[in-house]
Each structure stands twice: as structure tokens, then as C-alpha cells.
């Protein structure tokens, strides 16, 4: 029997990682995997209950919900990854500067980070959505990123403060390495692993936040195959057609749960102190 890498030997982590792989595959291959198009169907087919023809039933427009749930993986994974890319790079840059450059500038950067941490994420995002007056997925991505970099900045600052005092940093400086080189080649690689762990855990939280904003009506336009939007669109028909609301929600649940389980596994792998329990 092949030996799995240690974190994957925990069955929950294994399941979580499996679901993540499946999620990325579905997002990439949705047009191949989906039996119907995301918006193909007529009003004659509306509200068909789940059955062999439509596994998850059809919605108020007669569209196949199973296909739409598969297509819905795209905006979920896509917006999640973009938010993560923006906020981890911005947060890491701020954190490196705040932690490495002592004195007034570091202090100012830290205070700015604190200010953004003072907002509950969803509420700041709502204010931004109001200000840019657009109801699209891009608006949501911008709105969420504006708050989401701050925790990464906090983490990287703490790491950098500790790493700055290490001998290898002193050694690099004493042989004449410039600050930028020290930051990028010596500090960054050593400060980055908690960011990876946090990012894995956060992807689930970002998907939840995007879904909530879409549900409220600030994200994907009505009718688009987006999980949060599908629940919102189906809400008024829930009484007689429960499947319209049930399946997109299950999709969100599985995606978020998978990132949480895998994130826990990543944390255990990177942080040996937690390995006991």
C-alpha cells in the first residue's frame, strides 16, 4: 500500500483535499461535465422535481439545476482565488515592510492595518459595493479584498519581527546583501508558511462571504449560475419546490467544509506544536 504524506493520513483531511481537487476539476471542466447548458431549457420544463432526467430538478426558468451547480463552481473558485491572490500579496508586502523597517513607517503601516481590522468584513464590503455602484462579481472581489489583506499583514509582520533577529539575516547583511535581497530571499520564504495555512482556511470563508453578498443581491446578476444567487432566485419558490434552494446551498457547504478540513490539516503539518492532539 502506498504511504500517504503525513497530513493526508487523517481521513477528514483526505476527504477535504479530495473534495477540493474535485471542485477545481468541476470548475475547469464544467462545460464538459454538465449535461445541459447553464441557461438552456424552456418554461415548459420549469420546476421538474429531481429525477433521472434532471438529477437536481429544474428551476423557475426550466434550467437544469445540476448543470448550474457545476457551473457555479467557476465564480466561487475564481473569485476566491482572485481575492486570495490580491490580499495575500498586498498583506505580505505590507507585513514585510512593517516588520522589517523599524521606526515610524513600520508603526504607521501597522496602525493602518489595525484600522482595516476594525471592520467586520462583510460590512466594509457592503459600503464599497454601495460606493462603486455596480452589482457584479468583480465589485465583490474588490470589496472583499479591501478588508481581507489586513490579517495577512498582521501575520507576516509578526513573523518578520522574529526572523529579522535571526543569525542568517545578520550573516546575509554582513556579507553585503542589500535590504531588498534580504527581504525577498531570506525573510519572505521563512515568513510565508503561516500565510499558506491561513489562506487555505480563508478560501472557505471567502466563498461564504461572496455567496452571502451574492445572496443579498450585491454580486452576480440575477439568473447567473452563481450559488448564492441561485439560492436568492429560488427563495420565493421554496415552499413548493424545495430543490431550487437545497442543492446550491449543499454545494456551498461542501466547498467551504472541504477548505476548512484541508486547512486544519495544513495547519497541523506546518505547526509541529499542534501535532499531539
Amino acid at each position: 500500500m502506498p504511504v500517504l504524506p503525513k497530513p493526508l493520513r487523517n481521513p477528514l483531511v483526505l476527504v477535504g483535499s479530495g473534495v477540493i481537487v474535485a471542485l477545481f476539476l468541476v470548475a475547469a471542466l464544467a462545460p464538459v461535465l454538465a449535461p445541459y447548458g447553464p441557461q438552456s431549457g424552456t418554461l415548459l420544463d420549469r420546476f421538474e422535481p429531481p429525477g433521472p432526467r434532471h438529477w437536481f430538478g429544474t428551476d423557475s426558468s426550466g434550467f437544469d439545476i445540476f448543470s448550474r451547480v457545476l457551473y457555479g463552481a467557476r465564480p466561487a473558485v475564481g473569485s476566491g482565488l482572485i481575492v486570495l491572490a490580491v490580499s495575500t500579496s498586498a498583506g505580505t508586502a505590507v507585513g514585510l515592510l512593517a516588520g522589517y523597517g523599524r521606526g515610524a513607517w513600520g508603526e504607521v503601516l501597522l496602525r493602518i492595518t489595525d484600522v482595516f481590522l476594525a471592520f467586520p468584513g462583510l460590512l466594509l464590503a457592503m459600503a464599497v459595493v454601495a460606493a462603486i455602484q455596480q452589482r457584479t462579481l468583480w465589485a465583490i472581489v474588490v470589496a472583499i479584498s479591501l478588508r481581507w489583506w489586513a490579517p495577512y499583514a498582521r501575520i507576516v509582520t509578526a513573523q518578520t519581527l522574529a526572523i529579522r533577529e535571526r543569525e542568517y539575516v545578520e550573516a546575509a547583511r554582513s556579507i553585503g546583501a542589500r535590504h531588498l535581497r534580504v527581504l525577498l530571499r531570506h525573510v519572505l520564504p521563512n515568513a510565508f508558511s503561516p500565510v499558506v495555512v491561513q489562506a487555505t482556511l480563508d478560501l472557505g470563508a471567502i466563498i461564504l462571504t461572496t455567496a452571502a453578498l451574492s445572496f443579498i443581491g450585491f454580486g452576480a446578476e440575477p439568473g447567473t449560475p452563481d450559488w448564492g444567487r441561485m439560492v436568492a432566485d429560488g427563495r420565493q419558490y421554496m415552499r413548493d419546490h424545495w430543490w431550487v434552494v437545497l442543492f446550491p446551498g449543499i454545494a456551498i457547504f461542501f466547498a467551504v467544509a472541504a477548505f476548512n478540513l484541508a486547512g486544519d490539516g495544513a495547519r497541523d503539518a506546518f505547526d509541529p506544536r499542534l501535532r499531539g492532539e
Partner: protein
Amino acid sequence: MIGFVARRLATLVAVVFGAMTVTFVIARVIPQNVAQIWAGVQGFKVTPDVIALVTRQYHLNEPLIVQYGYYLRDLASGRWGTSPVTGRPVAVDILMYLPNTMELAAAALLLAVAVSVPMGVVAARARNSWVDQASRALALIGVAAPTFWIGLLLQFVFYYWLGWVRDPGGMLSDSTLALYPVRHVTGFVVLDAALTGNGPGLLDAINHLALPAISLALPLVALLSRMTRSSMLEVLNQDYVRTARAKGMPEWRVTWRHALRNALMPTVTVLGLSTGWLLTGSVVTELIFYWPGVGRYAVGAVTSFDFPAVTAYTALAALIFSLANLLTDIVYAYVDPRIRFA
């Protein structure tokens, strides 16, 4: 201790001031054609005259720094600006909805603590028992299932299907409002009904409060029960627990008195996090259950481009969140002297 609190309070003032500046930038610098939108919102025909009037009324053509001054003056005066939609001071509107949100949040918090602490203790005492497994499953659902979806499922099961709940939303039924009106005492409906001895009103209020409170509590149950479990596990291995057992103390007393009291300390840190969640989660919950709270008000404000209202609510949320975090730190420093002097 006083020095610690003073230091933290100074930081808090700076941070909240910064947060208000950020909300100003978001609400005043990014938006386009604000005067035109607000003129339309007020129901006038949008003519250049009306736009000029609105522009003058809200100082929109002044330099940004002057507008910022007006903004700070409005916040300091306690009116928080005038809503272009309702025409009232934003503070008046928010104060009207705030008690309803506080009632919902308090109910959710109480429910979460009442469920999660015993569950965490039992799960720690009997590891891998069915209670432990169930709490693990519940924690995953609480963390990963979207609140709006849980809320809708609860509505489907308890309103449409079982019929245990009288309305899919709102705070009181129409029949209660007509036959047993709840007299205003504190502004919290459940409390007012209880204080005035209004039995039918109280039952109806609780009936309406149950589902939104459960939806809002679920993520907190997840957080608190796992936290209680892990700190209980740690405490149960301590020497003083062994000593208590050795001197023949009954096991329930060891668990619920000696161990739990010490295990609950780390749970205090979750207070700040919980407040953040209650602020965020109440938006979606209130929307689903037609709960007339500030979260629902804020969504309406975003939809109608009521920037003074959006700004005020966001700033208020930042203030509440920061205060909760400060309180957490103070409680923690009080409990653990090492933090005070760090």
C-alpha cells in the same frame, strides 16, 4: 491595570478615528453623480436646479477636506448626518432599528453559550462518544453552511412543513399586534412582553425570535463548543484536577466546578470574534426573517445609495467591534496578569 486600559483606550480612539476616515473615503471619494442619485431618491424630477440644490445641501462641491470637516462635525454632533432618503438624522433611524438587532444578537449569544458549553464539556469528558461526534458534525455545519441557507431550511421545515412557527418572519403576528399589543418599556419586545405580564405577546415574540436566533447562533455554537472542548481537555490533565479526585470529590463536581471554571477562561477570547459575527451575520439573518434591525436597514441603505446611512452604520459597526475587542483584552488582562505588563 489602569495604565494598560488607558493605553488600549488611546489605541482604540486612534483606530476608530481611522475607521471613520476610511468610511468617508469610501462614501465620498469613490461615488459618481451622488447629487443626481440623491435628487432622484427624494422623488423630485431631476432637473439641474434640484441637483444644484442637493449639491449645496450636502456641500458636494466643496473641497474634500471641507467635506471631511462637515462629516466629522456630523458624527460628533450625534446626528451622524442627514439621510437623503428618509430626510431624518441617520442616528434617529439607526436608533429605531438597533434594539431589534440587539435583541436578536443577545438571544443568539445566550442560546449559543447555553448549548455549546455543556456540549463541549461532555465531548471532552467522553472523547469519540456520540456526543463528541455530534458536536464535531455540528461544528462543521456551523462553520461551513451559509447562514442564509440554514435560515431558509429552518423556515421550510418549521413553517411550511411542521407549522410550528406562525410566520416566516417579523417580530410579532398581526393578530398579536391587534389583540395583545406589547407596551413599550425597554424597546426589547420579549423583555417588554414579560415585564408587562403580556403572556400571549411573550409567547408570540419568542415564537418569532426562535428561528432567526438559531440561525445566527449556529456558527457561534461551532466556535464555542470546539473551544470549550479543547480547553477542557487541557484542564482535565492538570494536577489540581487530580488532587480533587484524590481527595474523593465526586466526578461531576470535579468536572463542572473545578475544571470548567478554569477551562472557560480561553473562551473569553472568543467574545470579540462573536461580536464580529453577530454584526455580520445579523445582516443576512434579518434579511431572511424580515427582522426590522440595523442589518436590514443597512442593506436598504446600500440599495438606495443612502451614503450617510451606509457610512454611519459601517463606522458604528467598527466602533462596536473595536469596543468588544478592547473589552476582551481587558477581561483577559484582568484574568492573566502576564498580559497586563507585556
